[in-house]
């Protein structure tokens, strides 16, 4: 545990928490460009969060303490997840503390609290959103676990840092199993972060909304934290994807400051590319009916299973 490791860990968390709204802003900007609209500023999410923090919070009369607690729990778990995911360095205090399965559990905790808070007030929209979120969640989780298991099977470790370390140590080659699981992971990312084929992030009042329906009762700082946590979740998912499928440029354990200086701009470049890709996917695909979402996620699961089968048979 060197000073550089601690610095990297701190920088990782700071970059995730402070950079997540910027990532969302970048995606929105790309999407607006692709749709021939004039794009909002890339800093728009920060302005939104600042505005919300300055407002007075309004709570429903029937709100229980759980309702007030949920934003802090959700934001906290997302920040913790950001610390666990190796986005800049590999052997860091937090990244070796929890493996990928614990990380999936961490993300599930946030989901449970969000759904409980949405049902807490007892409005129709909140309950509806919570139920839909749980439906998406229980279908997306096996697919995500399957993706992680395929990567673990290849590198014989369930630790995300270990997987990244193994992949960087290998020669460049064609891995059909990883290609299939990457497709599956992208589909899970879209479903879990309320992106377009499953949910529309740009809508606030629509009968088919999922994520927004759960946040309808929140205002001011609570809403700001929830929105911020959603941005952080997207950032985290992108970083999990990099750790599994494109871990090049991560500073290995005990590396000097030079490796860190390389890791930061590389992460920024990867995020910029991923954001542009995400905007492209969202622009070319249409939103599915809610009842088609299980089919979408079943396809993701099938891709992950195919990845595992191909890995077992071909050994690649």
């Amino acid at each position, binding site marked *: 545990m060197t000073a550089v490791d601690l610095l990297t860990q701190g920088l990782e968390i700071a970059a995730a928490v402070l950079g997540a709204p910027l990532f969302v802003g970048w995606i929105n900007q790309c999407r607006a460009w692709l749709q021939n609209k004039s794009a909002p500023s890339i800093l728009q999410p920060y302005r939104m969060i600042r505005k919300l923090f300055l407002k007075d919070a309004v709570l429903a009369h029937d709100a229980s303490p759980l309702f007030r607690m949920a934003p802090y729990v959700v934001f906290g778990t997302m920040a913790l997840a950001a610390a666990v995911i190796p986005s800049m360095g590999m052997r860091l205090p937090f990244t070796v503390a929890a493996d990928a399965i614990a990380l999936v559990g961490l993300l599930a905790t946030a989901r449970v609290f969000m759904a409980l808070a949405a049902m807490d007030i007892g409005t129709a929209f909140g309950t509806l959103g919570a139920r839909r979120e749980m439906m998406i969640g229980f279908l997306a989780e096996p697919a995500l676990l399957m993706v992680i298991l395929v990567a673990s099977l290849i590198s014989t470790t369930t630790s995300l840092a270990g997987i990244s370390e193994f992949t960087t140590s290998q020669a460049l080659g064609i891995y059909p199993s990883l290609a299939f699981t990457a497709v599956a992971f992208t589909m899970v990312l879209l479903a879990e972060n309320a992106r377009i084929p499953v949910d529309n992030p740009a809508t606030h009042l629509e009968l088919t909304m999922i994520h927004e329906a759960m946040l309808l009762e929140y205002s001011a700082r609570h809403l700001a934290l929830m929105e911020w946590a959603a941005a952080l979740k997207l950032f985290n998912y992108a970083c999990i994807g990099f750790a599994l499928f494109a871990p090049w440029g991560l500073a290995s354990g005990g590396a000097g400051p030079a490796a860190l200086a390389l890791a930061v701009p590389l992460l920024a470049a990867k995020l910029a590319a991923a954001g542009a890709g995400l905007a492209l996917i969202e622009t070319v695909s249409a939103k599915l009916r809610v009842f088609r979402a299980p089919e979408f996620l079943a396809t993701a699961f099938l891709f992950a299973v195919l990845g595992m*089968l191909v890995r077992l048979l*071909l050994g*690649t």
Partner: protein
Amino acid sequence: MNNLTWDLQLLNACAALLLLLAFAMLSQRRIVTLVYLLALQGALLCVATLLVAWRTGESHLYVSAGLTLALKVLFLPWLLNRLIRRLDVYWDTESMLNTGGTMLIGVGIVIFSFGLAQPISALASTATRSSIGIAVAVILLAFLTMITRRKAMSQVIGFLSMENGLFFGAMSATYGMPMIVELGVALDVLVAMLVLGVFFFQIREQFDSLDLHHLESLKEQK
């Protein structure tokens, strides 16, 4: 673990994509897309044959790759598309099982065929022996496609896809069949396709549809 040469890696990628296409065909209900997927499968087979030919230096495989390209990528899809337009069948009716159930059976079939192919792979001496399991899986999945469909058109496409799987299996187990057998099979498929094309029109004339469950009752209706 990935210390294979690049051509073997590409071959493995082809095998994996063939498996993926077999699943895509299993879930696809638009017949036009099914034909497109079949052509794609043929193209992958052609690439795989070329790679094996380049690797082993067997000249007859180049001929067979050319044959695959001409027949399975260009001619048969063109013929099928023409038939679709003239028969006016663009969609298959609801299949016997829902998509999710079919996919699960498909995954089971893949596991079964991997187990089935393991002893064969152990005996084979070719560098491509690990793909035998995938070839068996593609054959059985095409078989499943034929079983779950009702329209004559999609059953024929399943049949052609099964032939693709057999071809791929022969290539991975023994670097292809002798030239004369390959020519014979190609001719058979061609003739079968032409005869089936005539059959389609006959079936439709008789029953006013291409749904094969009309053929299940043997009695003539009075």
